[in-house]
């Protein structure tokens, strides 16, 4: 990686007319190129959002391009055929000046993973004047990108300064504040020091999510599983998941619906099902109301299931890390019962001991069950557990887009419920403190404040802060609550919190 540290000035390599071309004069689309790519939006309309080529492969002598739509979530990344590329607007890969970031805090999303492709191209370029013919072969026989780890190199800031007129739609947001918050909590980690001397370092050992994407590379940026068959569902994974590598080439990865074991073929799944007699998650049922049940699984005691669950969840959680074992986590699996058994709907994991008041590590509603209120049910259940524990809690950060929306929705509804129910006594204005809200809901104080802000309820009026409920808010809330029929019944919860600190480590 050291060789990357002294690149040529970008201006030297970039300019009009410095576009390499293949033999027939067409532009060669290589990794790192940006160009508009056709995709259908939700209304099934054609869009041409700008996309970056992350990988190129050839299937049956036809090239396929893995594209990431810029400013779209990675889960929409896909393999596209050449006809969806708008080659007229092709932007060649740009090589940013590499300022080795000493602090090991690169941008959370490296614009393009570093790879030898670029270097090879550069070398070809330098020799181009002499041996033009060879340059083509040099670029085409690029070594597989997968072998190159990305550098925690470029930050957004340097990128912006180098390309002020880049015109990309990417908003350059300094990543410092969010980063700092994260860095504070890992301040004692040895990782931060390690990364400065170039030694590959292990991430921190607490938590389940990563925001530091310094380990991000081209492999983990791309989905590796095409399709997962789970029970009666076929799922399209959103993100990379470290299933055994030999299984990633399969068109369909089969999972046992109940033990979540991964199998390479339907035949194997059939054979497995003759031996697997599970019809529910292998844990203790701590909640049941109607068809909804929650099972508690100890990540130390039931490693196989926990790991299988994590592998599946990673397919849909970008920031989830599977770097370490599952020992310090409890897994709460929500199931829906039918005559075949208890089918997994979603789950959340929770650290047995959290130093940062996290009551949820990872939380996921499986795609087939999404947008049906199960997510909110999971969140509600997590706060019910916190209420039993007598603690306030907050989900581990960073939140995903869907996570943020779900939590905001839950918080809003929960807080509004309280505010609407406040009775005025003695004819005075009903009043409540933020701490009280937090205590009642087990929602952490910061989340209460942020929700109040987001809902624009906090106002400064005549020398004091007040909470104001607008008609819109009230109506919206009532509408939402009317639709929200899935609720957790605390009476159905049979849960005794354990003091994990007394049990040794986890």
């Amino acid at each position, binding site marked *: 990686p050291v060789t990357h540290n002294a690149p040529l000035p970008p201006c030297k390599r970039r300019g009009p007319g410095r576009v390499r071309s293949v033999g027939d004069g067409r532009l060669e689309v290589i990794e790192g190129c940006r160009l508009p790519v056709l995709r259908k939006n939700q209304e099934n309309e054609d869009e041409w959002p700008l996309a970056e080529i992350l990988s190129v492969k050839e299937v049956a002598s036809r090239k396929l391009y893995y594209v990431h739509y810029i400013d779209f979530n990675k889960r929409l990344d896909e393999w596209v055929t050449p006809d969806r590329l708008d080659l007229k607007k092709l932007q060649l890969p740009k090589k940013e000046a590499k300022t080795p970031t000493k602090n090991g805090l690169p941008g959370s999303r490296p614009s393009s993973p570093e790879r030898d492709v670029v270097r090879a191209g550069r070398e070809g370029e330098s020799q181009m004047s002499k041996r033009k013919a060879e340059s083509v072969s040099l670029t085409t026989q690029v070594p597989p990108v997968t072998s190159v780890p990305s550098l925690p190199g470029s930050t957004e800031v340097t990128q912006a300064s180098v390309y002020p007129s880049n015109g990309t739609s990417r908003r350059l947001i300094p990543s410092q504040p969010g980063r700092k918050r994260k860095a504070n909590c890992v301040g004692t980690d040895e990782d931060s020091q390690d990364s400065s001397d170039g030694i590959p370092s292990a991430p921190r050992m607490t938590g389940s999510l990563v925001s530091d994407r310094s380990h991000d590379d081209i492999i983990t940026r791309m989905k590796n599983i095409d399709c997962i068959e789970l029970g009666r569902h076929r799922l399209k994974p959103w993100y990379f998941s470290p299933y055994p590598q030999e299984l990633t080439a399969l068109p369909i990865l089969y999972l046992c619906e109940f033990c979540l074991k991964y199998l390479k073929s339907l035949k194997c799944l059939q054979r497995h099902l003759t031996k697997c007699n599970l019809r529910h998650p292998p844990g203790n049922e701590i909640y049941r109301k109607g068809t909804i049940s929650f099972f508690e699984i100890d990540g130390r005691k039931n490693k196989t299931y926990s790991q299988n669950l994590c592998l599946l969840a990673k397919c849909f959680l970008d920031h989830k890390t599977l770097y370490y074992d599952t020992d310090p986590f409890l897994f709460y699996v929500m199931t829906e019962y039918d005559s075949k058994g208890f089918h997994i709907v979603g789950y959340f994991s929770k650290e047995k001991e959290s130093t940062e008041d996290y009551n949820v590590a990872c939380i996921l509603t499986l795609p*087939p069950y999404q947008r049906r209120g199960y997510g909110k049910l999971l969140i509600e259940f997590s706060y019910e557990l916190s209420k039993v524990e007598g603690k306030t809690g907050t989900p581990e950060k960073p939140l995903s887009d869907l996570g943020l929306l779900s939590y905001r929705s839950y918080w809003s509804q929960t807080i509004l419920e309280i505010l609407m129910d406040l009775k005025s006594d003695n004819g005075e204005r009903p009043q409540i403190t933020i701490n009280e809200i937090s205590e009642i809901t087990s929602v952490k104080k910061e989340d209460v404040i942020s929700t109040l802000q987001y809902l624009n309820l906090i106002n400064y009026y005549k020398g004091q802060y007040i909470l104001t409920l*607008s008609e819109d808010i009230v109506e919206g809330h009532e509408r939402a609550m009317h639709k929200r029929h899935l609720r957790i019944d605390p009476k159905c919860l049979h849960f005794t919190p354990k003091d994990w600190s007394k049990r040794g480590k986890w």
Partner: protein
Amino acid sequence: MSKLSFRARALDASKPLPVFRCEDLPDLNEYASINRAVPQMPTGMEKEEESEHHLQRAISAQQVYGEKRDNMVIPVPEAESNISYYDSLYPGEFRMPKQLIHIQPFSLDTEQPDYDLDSDDEAFVNKLRKKMEITPLQFEEMIDRLEKGSGQQLVTLQEAKLLLKEDDDLIREVFDYWTRKRKACKSASLIPVVKQEKRDGSSTNDPYVAFRRRTEKMQTRKNRKNDEASYEKMLKLRRDLSRAVTILEMIKRREKSKRELLHLTLEIVEKRYSMADFGGEVMAEVLAQRALIKPTYTMPLIPLSSNQFRHQDHLELKDFKPKPEKTEVVRTKRKYEKKPKVLQPSSSVSQQSGHSSLPAFNAKDLNQYDFPSSDEEPFSQMLSGSSEAEEDSDPDGPFAFRRKAGCQYYAPGQGSNWPWCDPGDPRYRYSLTTLTVPHRCVGLARRRVGRGGRFLLDRAHSDLDNVFYGLDPEMHSLPAQSPNGKLASTSESNTSDRPAPPDLGHILLNIKSCRWRHFRPRTLPRDSDSSGLYRGLTRVSMANPRTQTGGSTSQSRTGPGPAPAAALTAEQYQQHQEQLALMQKQQLEQIQQQQAGNAPAALTTQGLVSKTLDSASAQFAASALVTTEELLAIKAKEEIVLGIGVNGVLPGSGKWSLHFATNSTTTANTATPSGHGAAAQVLMGNSVRLGMSSAGGTVNSITTLNARHIPRTLTAVPPSALKLAAAATANCQVPKVTAASSLDMVVRENHDQETTALNSIADSTVAMEVT
């Protein structure tokens, strides 16, 4: 506006916030600008993702409409839920249990194989089924075992046969199939598993490696090493402690046995006292019977107690009397250990019994840990000796040579090159020999030096034995003299001018005229010995400090007075040997002349009785078993004082033999005047022993006695002796018991035995031993 001029206070989470409806506050908008004073809380999202198109759209839609609309949701990849074969795949119904499901620990550990049959396997199994019996599950189990048995290297067929319980044909088929499939397979295992981390840390960044072990707060290598070290220390400590426990248990056993032994001894003593068996005859009888009937159960303590009792009953031992019990106790112990050693040479039966009497003592164990016994040191040493003697490979038995720490050992002389092996050497010929204590002639004998500097007498039978035994008429009067307590009563007899009985006149004449060599160990120091035989013998007596200076006399002490003691320098010894040899030669000639016709072969060395004539003195025995012979050869010029304790006294009969057991630790002759009193006494007591046993038809009794604890005065010790004494071992002790008493006992004992056994002369060879 003045309202904007002041800053809003920070939001206080503990301060009550009144809740208003917006319609109740129409002037709220005027204050709206101040709201910015409330700091924006972070969303908790990654900043870049927060800016993503669909999220922003959804958020704005939410804010506009209060609730997001369907077309404003964040798009996700599609999922299908119409798997047609689902019902056939998951057959059967599962009824919801009424109670909450509670799984039992370990109930999930099924014995099912992790490997799942695929289509290829199914084809193979179906094909194989035509030939032999195999079920898919069986096949899966086999593959599972093969896979899990393989590490980096695949299981070999040989190992496979061990792993699998099926019959060989099936194993071979499946193994071949598995090997082929495994080779075609690119991954590490046919059972897909998530990549494991590698130990070398090279997998730190491998995205396919997951679920790494958490190492609690990464330790540095140094700390880990310390942990290992302390772990090892703990292990060692545990081992040591358990060893200590073992030792203590063994000590407990030993002490219990000791106590038992003491009780038994006491019981025997009491019994014997009640039946007035003061002479030990009953004892001996019983013992002999026991040895025949129940050889394995011979009590180790029995044969020796007779002597002790005689000590106390018949001899008025002033020193012993104040604490008879103590000496008794310790003596018992000593006898106990020594018993097998004593008995061993005489009969195999008693040897056996000796060993069987030591069941509780595992001497090897004791020595293994090298811990100090509660007993005196020689105890364990001797124990170890006797226990090792049990090994069949040790032909010497308890007499085997054992190295002692701190001793120097010289290479042995040239094999059989002993001086006495040469028949021509006059010093080692058989000659008439007279012992000092008891004072009598034992007939023809030759001297040689045995192991540890012991002096051995090889006796030869001759027809004249009867005559020889009668040579010293004073002998028979000795016991009569003993009890009278005359300190200074000495009867002197000179070799040359001894009063001869009339019937022996001829022989005596020969002897007198030095035609026969007559060896008589001398106890008196004599620088100017008239006979010239014994020069430089130094004798020191503590109880009777006067130095005997009588010319050419040998002393036989019968009273309780000081026993004779002699110090012999190497030179003197050598000289003495020479003279002995000369004497022997002459003697032989004489006999040959006299009995040329009658018994020409009578003097041949048939039927040798090896006797301990002389025992090495304290320093000598203790200092490392260097034979006197070797010492003499190597250090002939050095002035080494040999403390010759006692000249062995042997009754003439070949049937009776005496053991002069010199305990190496009871070195009487080193002059350490103070201290060690009690110990010396103990040792003294222990070393005096009478061992009796019988074997076969003939009574063959071994009498062991030690009578060489002879007090000496420091002043009389020559400087050379002192030097040696100082350099000598630490276990020099001065016995408090006067040697005379023990000597007296010995004499009496011998006398008794002699009278009973004189008539039968057998040429039995009894190995004599001095410890």
